[in-house]
């Protein structure tokens, strides 16, 4: 078997590594380089201007600072809400029911709920954007929520939820949560399946209610999964863009109320022709993602419980 080992390794790695280096690694490296220049993106001339772009980022009160603020909000709210809901649903659907003879099982209809909750996960973000744009639309454009609110005599925003500065960011986050919860429900469900049932049975004998079972047994044993989910959701939160692009007025409006970092990179790169500035913001985003991953991996793990 030693015969022809290296030719084999080379022949198998050449294509994937070559393609990956050419279309992924190299563009990312170039983006770092571009961020140190004053390149507009269209001309062939540019100068190196050091870290000026980075300094100017934090002076841009028109787009960058609101975007950083909103992405920061999403970064906190999306994981917290999604993980809480995912854990709650997973617990109810797998362990929440009290079956006959005190057996541990999910509540009734658990299978149905799982199928329904997961469905948004397979819908493309373009479809989700169109769907919810219609749901949030103003009443005279056929909006579902505004129509329902008016039908029961409650006030609704005249121009719909997405054209209202007060609601637009919350509306976008709600759609993000809506589409993500099913995934984390299934994710936590499979983690819960590996927790031995006798732990719960012992808990029941000791008179534990469902609250105690959740907080004293399930949650501590799921800590690794929660941490993984946190990293995934943080990366999703940092990358939010397509929904904002599809749903909101002026792709980040009204009046920058739903501007996010991804969208601002897009605007500077493809609308304003300020490639270097956009790249600098992208690099900041990259290091934010890296820091988050490293921090949660370093400070996350508690002592591992073998079972």
């Amino acid at each position, binding site marked *: 078997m030693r015969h022809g080992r*290296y030719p084999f390794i080379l022949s198998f790695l050449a294509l994937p590594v070559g*393609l990956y280096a050419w279309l992924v690694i190299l*563009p990312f490296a170039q983006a770092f380089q571009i961020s140190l220049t004053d390149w507009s993106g269209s001309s062939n001339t540019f100068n190196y201007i050091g870290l000026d772009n980075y300094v100017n980022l934090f002076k841009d009160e028109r787009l960058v600072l609101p975007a950083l603020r909103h992405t920061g909000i999403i970064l906190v709210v999306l994981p917290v809400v999604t993980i809480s809901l995912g854990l709650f649903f997973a617990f109810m659907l797998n362990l929440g029911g009290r079956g006959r003879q005190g057996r541990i099982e999910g509540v009734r209809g658990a299978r149905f709920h799982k199928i329904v909750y997961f469905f948004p996960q397979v819908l493309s973000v373009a479809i989700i954007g169109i769907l919810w744009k219609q749901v949030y639309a103003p009443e005279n454009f*056929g909006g579902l929520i505004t129509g329902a609110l008016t039908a029961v005599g409650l006030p609704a925003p005249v121009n719909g939820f997405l054209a209202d500065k007060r609601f637009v960011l919350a509306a976008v986050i709600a759609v993000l949560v809506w589409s993500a919860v099913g995934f984390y429900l299934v994710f936590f469900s499979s983690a819960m399946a590996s927790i031995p049932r006798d732990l719960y049975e012992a808990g029941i004998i000791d008179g534990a209610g469902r609250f105690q079972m959740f907080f004293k047994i399930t949650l501590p044993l799921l800590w690794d999964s929660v941490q993984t989910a946190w990293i995934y959701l943080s990366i999703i939160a940092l990358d939010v863009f397509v929904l904002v692009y599809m749903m909101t007025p002026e792709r980040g409006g009204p009046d920058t109320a739903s501007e996010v970092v991804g969208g601002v990179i897009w605007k500077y*790169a493809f609308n304003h022709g300020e490639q270097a500035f956009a790249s600098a913001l992208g690099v900041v985003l990259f290091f934010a993602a890296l820091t988050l991953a490293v921090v949660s991996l370093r400070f996350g793990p508690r002592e591992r419980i073998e079972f």
Partner: protein
Amino acid sequence: MATDTAEQTAARSNGREPRSEGAVLNLFSQGFLWLWALMVIVPVVWVVVTSFKTSREIASDPLGLPAAMHFENYANAWTNGHIGGYFLNTVQVMAFSVTGTMLLGAMAAYVLARYEFPGNRLLYFAFAGGMMFPVFLALFPLFKTLQNVGLLNTYPGLVLVYIAYSLPFTVFFLTAFFRTLPTGVAEAATVDGAGHYRLFFQVMLPMAKPGLIAITIFNIIGQWNQFLLPLVLLSRNPEDAVISQGLANLALRQGYEGDSGALFAGTVLAMIPIFIAYVLFQRQIQAGLTAGAIK
């Protein structure tokens, strides 16, 4: 959400019979479970119902049922909206991109998992690290790269990019999978005189089938839903658009022409194949999409 009062009351009345123990908790959690189910079902059903209304009905009575089944919306979406064409475009691209992703991904993952050589760890981390890169950062250099070699606004260009950007997760997942396969079978095959290539194609690939299926489903869904890359790299000719891009175009045009009926119908048309696939392969899809997360 403060806006779901109607659904909430509907959900409450669905709560099951309370038991003596924790009756309130039971009612609350059952109600909440149904509320969430309705939050998924109601918008989707509403879009389907609305797709049969005339544009005037949609604007004047968003919640009502259509007076008559207005099938013209579907004809409009199919012909003026080109939904059928976008479908074919997407299938065409993905036939190559998914196959390519799986082949290249499996090759790289196999070598990284089962062969020791200098630089092995470095390559593995180069691939795995790619999962964290924000795509925005690379978009413009990528645009220029493809432009320089004449692959911008072409399907081959898009296929190569899809493959390259699907590799990180595919390699990461399949490397872990190949590592778990027993070494005994490989050794036996080697003793029987199988070379490196035969070992891979005739022994290891068939053994890795469950992992390959899971990650194929993951990639199919991921590439079907891809929006950002085609938006930048396939923007010249609107008729060449892939499905999510085409829908976005339809949504944009609906804003000018006011034909919201066609937009609803187009959305439904785009959902139908996904819905059928989901109902049929619901178990495999859930396993495939969450597979990477469970190490």
